[in-house]
């Protein structure tokens, strides 16, 4: 286990930064391609990562995305500073959203973010503290 190679890279994301929204996911996708991950797996990782990144941009103040790749799995951890999610179970329900009208105007806030992440990742853990922030950790097996 300790001899297993691990690639790790971190990305800083700012809330409301719509200009750069999605860039971390694009870079992560490029890294996964260089490592030779199967296109279908890359696509799942990309969708899950993009949704998580957009959640930060839409709802949080800032976050660190950490990508870890081993020969066994891709692990993406998104740790944000924000309002947190009061009821994670509710947030996981497709169609549930607390998005403002402004966010909906932009074409987001359909309540599919977390369900989409769950559908594309093999495992998803969410830990949230109201008033502090949310940490989301997803893994996709190779």
């Amino acid at each position: 286990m300790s001899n297993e190679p691990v690639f790790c890279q971190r990305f800083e994301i700012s809330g409301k930064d719509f200009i750069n929204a999605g860039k971390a996911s694009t870079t992560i996708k490029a890294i996964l391609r260089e490592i030779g991950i199967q296109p279908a797996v890359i696509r799942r990782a990309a969708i899950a990562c993009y949704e998580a990144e957009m959640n930060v941009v839409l709802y949080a103040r800032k976050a660190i995305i950490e990508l870890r790749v081993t020969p066994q799995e891709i692990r993406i951890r998104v740790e944000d500073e924000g309002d947190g999610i009061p009821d994670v179970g509710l947030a996981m329900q497709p169609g549930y959203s607390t998005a403002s009208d402004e966010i909906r105007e932009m074409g987001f806030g359909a309540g599919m973010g977390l369900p989409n992440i769950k559908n594309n990742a093999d495992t998803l853990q969410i830990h949230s503290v109201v008033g502090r922030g949310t940490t989301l950790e997803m893994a996709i097996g190779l």
Partner: protein
Amino acid sequence: MDGYFHSVRIAPERCTGSMACLKVCPTEAIRVRRGKAAILEDRCIDCGECARVCPRNAIVPQTSSFTDFARFQYTIALISPVLYGQLRKEVMPRTIVAALRKIGFDEACDVACASEAVSTAVDEYLASYRGPLPLLSPFCPTIVRLIQARYPDLIDLLIPIDSPMEIAARDIRQKKMKELGLRREEIGVIYLTPCPAKMVAIKYPPRKKKSHIDGAIAISDIYHPLLAATSDMSGDACKDGQSVTGSGLGWPVLGGQVLSLRAERSLAVGGLDDVERILEEIENGKLGDIQYVECHACPQGCCGGSLTVDNPYVTRGKMLSLLARFGGTPCQDRETVRELYHRNYFSLPGKISSRPLAPLDQDIAKAIEKRKRVQEICRVLPQINCGACGAPTCLSFAEDVVLDQAPLQDCVVLMARQAPSEAGSGKDHAA
């Protein structure tokens, strides 16, 4: 297909290593080594941007020349509608057809009419399609290459309908074979092309074995003979030329395909940067409410192809005015085209293969190790992407170092920083 045929070739004797090409290549497929540019074959997507910017004309588009067609008994010029927008405003398409006969082609055949028919075919395809959306236009060869290399999971979104130039070539060849009693190989069908990428699509057509076209001559190569031929042409010479009408006249303009479609939820995107942003969105599961995306590698569509002569915006203006005058009169009966569509006249059953870029290593554990080394090397590099090493960015240079394609000493910034402490020992380039 092992080696790749590419739309451009570097003439080393003319290359001075000026690095203009290095910076514009959208796929980072160029390296300048020992003062000469070289193309990394598996990365090149044939956009021709490098040829456009080379100050020495050292990057040569691989189109055909007139002498290549001496073997044919009968030659047919296949006119990309872009050509109609290249000459003086008052030169009408039918004059150009007549002028091409005068230059030495036995026949000249318009492609705009086939473009209109292909639009109808795309509409029919969209109407019965029930799979994931949006579908993508397959008519820009560079876009197809881009998707094969970088977005292999989007390949199935490329519409399996043949390009207007192929449809037009097949039709005119069959017609002339019957009319003149000639064999297939006795007739040469030559596309007058706005870009070098079409040459790749002719040599290696996606989804089929052989193109209906025998070669392509650059519009820039035919421009001067054509100018001379049209300048002294009287009104009489135009009379035998056919007139060109229909929505296909808009195809060379960005958005022209979308305009010619009945599908309402479609969009047009030009320029590789913006096309990539759209493809990224689609990969992220977005844009599913759009039916059709018209994609062009060139920002202005084929009007701005690298082998055109006139300013792309001027050409665009001329094409739009032609479209306004003649676009409203259909070139073919729509019902006839629909019937042809349902007899698979436009369909391409073959698969487009993916051509993903090689990873850092075939073994995933080794690839991870190598990507870690790339990251470590990147940390010591200046991150100014100066290109002096011969790679376009510090990241691509780090990859080259890890793959033993370049020594770390090629980074002049790094060497300059280390120079005082390593004076006298900086000769070792064997890494």
